[in-house]
């Protein structure tokens, strides 16, 4: 979807304003949102692409207004309700609808292991290798209403295949329950001038990781 989350290349969003004394969390609730998101995720009811899509589906004006962990909170509520783990009524009331109590899949003593294990996105399957390293390719002009990881600023632009990252889960389907459909992922180099025009610095470049489905021969 062409949402405001796809903001690469935009102007007018303010100063960066790094805070050298920034705490890891600005309030306890931020840390609880992070932890809840990871812990409920252990139920395996959604994947990372679904959770990204839940956050990027926040309406544009709210997305730009909210801080990071507020977006996570909204995304988490969206996910747990969509997965049927809780009901909207329960979220509104803050109380379980009945007395049944489940058993959390992630116990405290398994947290370190679960975080260290992670969840690779590579899949050990055969997949075509349509583009050799060094090949010139064009990012396709795709404008899906669903999830995609092809930023608008690269669409239609010509780049060069730099790396073959192997076969990775495809977010555009995985985010919508249409399966992992693993495809080959490439590191693609675009010159800054190709992306932004002749005023850009002639030496600079931007590198994106793009699935073969996003690319066509140039």
């Amino acid at each position, binding site marked *: 979807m062409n949402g405001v*989350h796809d*903001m*690469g*290349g*935009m*102007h007018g*969003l*303010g*100063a*960066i*304003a*790094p805070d050298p004394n*920034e705490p890891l*969390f*600005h*309030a*306890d609730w931020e840390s609880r*949102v*992070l*932890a*809840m998101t*990871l*812990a409920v995720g252990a*139920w395996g009811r959604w994947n990372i692409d679904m959770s*990204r899509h839940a956050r990027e589906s926040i309406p544009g004006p709210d997305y730009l*207004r*909210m801080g*990071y*962990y*507020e977006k996570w*909170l909204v995304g988490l509520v969206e996910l*747990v309700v969509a997965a049927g*783990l*809780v009901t909207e009524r329960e*979220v509104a009331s*803050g*109380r*379980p609808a009945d007395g049944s109590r489940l058993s*959390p899949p*992630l*116990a*405290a003593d398994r947290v370190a292991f679960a*975080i*260290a*294990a*992670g*969840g690779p*996105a590579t899949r050990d399957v055969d997949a075509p290798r349509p583009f050799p390293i060094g090949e010139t390719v064009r990012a396709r002009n795709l404008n899906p209403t669903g999830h995609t990881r*092809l*930023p608008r*600023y690269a669409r239609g632009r010509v780049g060069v295949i730099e790396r073959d*990252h192997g076969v990775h*889960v495809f977010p555009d389907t995985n985010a919508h329950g249409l399966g992992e459909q693993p495809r080959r992922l490439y*590191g693609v180099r675009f010159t800054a001038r190709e*992306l932004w025009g002749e005023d850009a610095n002639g*030496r*600079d*470049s931007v590198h994106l*990781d*793009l699935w073969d489905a996003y690319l066509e021969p140039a």
Partner: protein
Amino acid sequence: MHDHDQAPGHGHEHGQDPPSELALRVKALETLLVEKGLVDPAALDAIIDTYAHKVGPRNGARVVARSWVDPDYRARLLKDATAAITELGYTGRQGEHMIAVENTTDVHNLVVCTLCSCYPWPVLGLPPTWYKSSPYRSRAVIDPRGVLAEFGLTLPADTEIRVWDSTAEVRYLVIPQRPAGTEHLDEDALTALVNRDSMIGVALAGEPT
């Protein structure tokens, strides 16, 4: 210029004015999830403890310092960063597929995630607010030199800047240049010179932190 000049995107994250309504919503959600048996509150504490005390930019600094003193390690890191970082025990969530990019006198690397806020958690911990903010995400790809200037870093016009937009599950770690005059320092001492921002690419190494 405007009468609305508060830095956008930071509304609830600078903490001067804790948003009690948000805190209440979060507390209510946690209570609900715990009562339904969906999460174990002790597991939440353990997750927070992990990122507060165990996983952070000291991990990445160790990787960088090692690469400065051990040419074989540096070669392995550049060839297969995931494996080389695993050697030092830094693995897991948001670091499953790592690539290390090295700064040289001619090339400077900068990492961003324009679409969300992807970041190499096992080596750098949780990202700072500015990394997750609209201003950084929007401008890093179109105006990297202007962005670096906001961090106080002005590079020569003939330095090549490579911006890495983390659009997939591959995560990037910048290997900053070893500061001049540090030949006498050992790996532990060098680690203190590798600040977080230098591994994102918005700063140089050298300031002890």
